[in-house]
């Protein structure tokens, strides 16, 4: 019995150590991805380029320093076996990278594109880590919350059109996820996220509504098309 159990013990030790390292990497990814997201929110009308540049630089660090650690740990069956250990980090990374990408390009970064960017990190001889569909989707769900914050902020910043763009984009994601959420691997998480997402959509819509009716009151005025805060910033 003792021999068998020392075998089990070393199996469990290896597994637990690896899991520990993966959890640690995941937490680092989370923390640093969150910092990237905070950074994106520091975006104003006139510092867009600088802020995004810094965010992308930080994101590159997350990728090279922390995601790469994760990639090195994970092989084959680990992708699903240790999913719970790294899922939070990966979701937050998806959130950060898609947020940056949307701010730059106005479109959704695909899972394939993200996975392609991970490939160089891994030893070419081994199977590369591929983010799975559920983690990607859970990350996208959180993305919509950040986009909501961004939209409210951009309306403050006078960028109404950008806010409207976010509104359309988030609505589209919500619509697509309506069909996908119930067939996901563990749909429970996603269900609560869908509720939050609808709240976010409506917060953006209400903000757009508010700006719209205010603007419509003075259709002739030149100011009406301008930002509210724009005025302040000029002063």
């Amino acid at each position, binding site marked *: 019995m003792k021999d068998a159990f020392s075998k089990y013990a070393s199996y469990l030790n290896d597994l637990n150590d690896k899991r520990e390292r993966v959890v640690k990497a995941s937490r680092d990814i989370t923390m640093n991805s969150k910092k990237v997201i905070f950074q994106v929110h520091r975006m104003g009308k006139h510092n867009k380029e600088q802020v995004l540049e810094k965010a992308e630089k930080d994101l590159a660090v997350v990728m090279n320093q922390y995601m790469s650690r994760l990639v090195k740990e994970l092989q084959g069956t680990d992708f699903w076996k240790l999913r719970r250990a790294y899922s939070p980090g990966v979701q937050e990374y998806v959130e950060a990278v898609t947020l940056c990408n949307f701010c730059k390009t106005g479109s959704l970064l695909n899972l394939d594109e993200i996975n392609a960017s991970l490939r160089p990190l891994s030893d070419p001889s081994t199977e590369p880590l591929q983010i799975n569909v559920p983690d990607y989707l859970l990350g996208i769900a959180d993305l919509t919350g950040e986009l909501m914050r961004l939209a409210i902020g951009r309306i403050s910043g006078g960028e109404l059109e950008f806010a409207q763009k976010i509104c*359309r984009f988030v*609505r589209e994601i*919500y*619509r697509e996820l*309506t*069909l996908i959420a*119930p067939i996901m691997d563990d749909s429970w998480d996603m269900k609560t996220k869908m509720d939050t997402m609808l709240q976010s959509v*409506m917060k953006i*819509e*209400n903000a*757009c*509504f*508010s700006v*719209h*009716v*205010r603007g*419509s*009151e003075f259709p002739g005025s030149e100011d009406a098309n301008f930002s509210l805060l724009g005025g302040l910033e000029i002063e």
Partner: protein
Amino acid sequence: LNLERQFEEFRHQLDDSGNLRERIRSIALEIESATRLMQSSLLLIHQSGPIPEVLEKAKGQIGVLKELYNKLAEIILECPGQYYRYHGDWRSETQTVVSLLAFMHWLETEGLLLHAEAEEKLGLKSSEFGLDTEDYLIGICFMSNDLPRYVVNRVTAGDYDCPRKVLKFLTDLHAAFRMLNLRNDFLRKKFDGMKYDLRRVEEVYYDVKIRGLATTGNTTGEQGDGGQS
């Protein structure tokens, strides 16, 4: 032994009712799936998609639903008197179905989809398998929950007359519901929520009106001569 014979019989009973429930659940899942497609199409309404086209696509699922409810009815007829035993297995799905049908109906007619009309649309009228009244009413409450969002987005899209129309509808609906003696249950809770929808639509109408955006002409007229009676 008696004891053994009894439990043997129970085993058959439980297995049978388990199978039945299985079949019901599987149809309920299909109903849910069809509903979701309908819902997804209808969401385009908030994007200011052209209403007739949006409706056209959503209506595509009605046939599917009708068929599914037909199957459900057949199963239930196998065990007469037990409708309410299994009712819980499809009721929440049915409430959603009603809410969507009623919303589509309003978009077309600006009127309420009646209970009998809902039954007809789902092919339930003839059979012994009808649409439970409370499910219908809860579905209507669900529809009401969607109206504020609809109004907000219509105004943003420049349709300044929408708040008035929705407000009229919702006021009448709310008044009709008030006449019911509701128990302290889920329906009551849902109905209590309807007053927030009403208030929100009033606020939107206010926002539009105070800025002179509502097409004031005929509105005031209508309101002046007595309101929503």
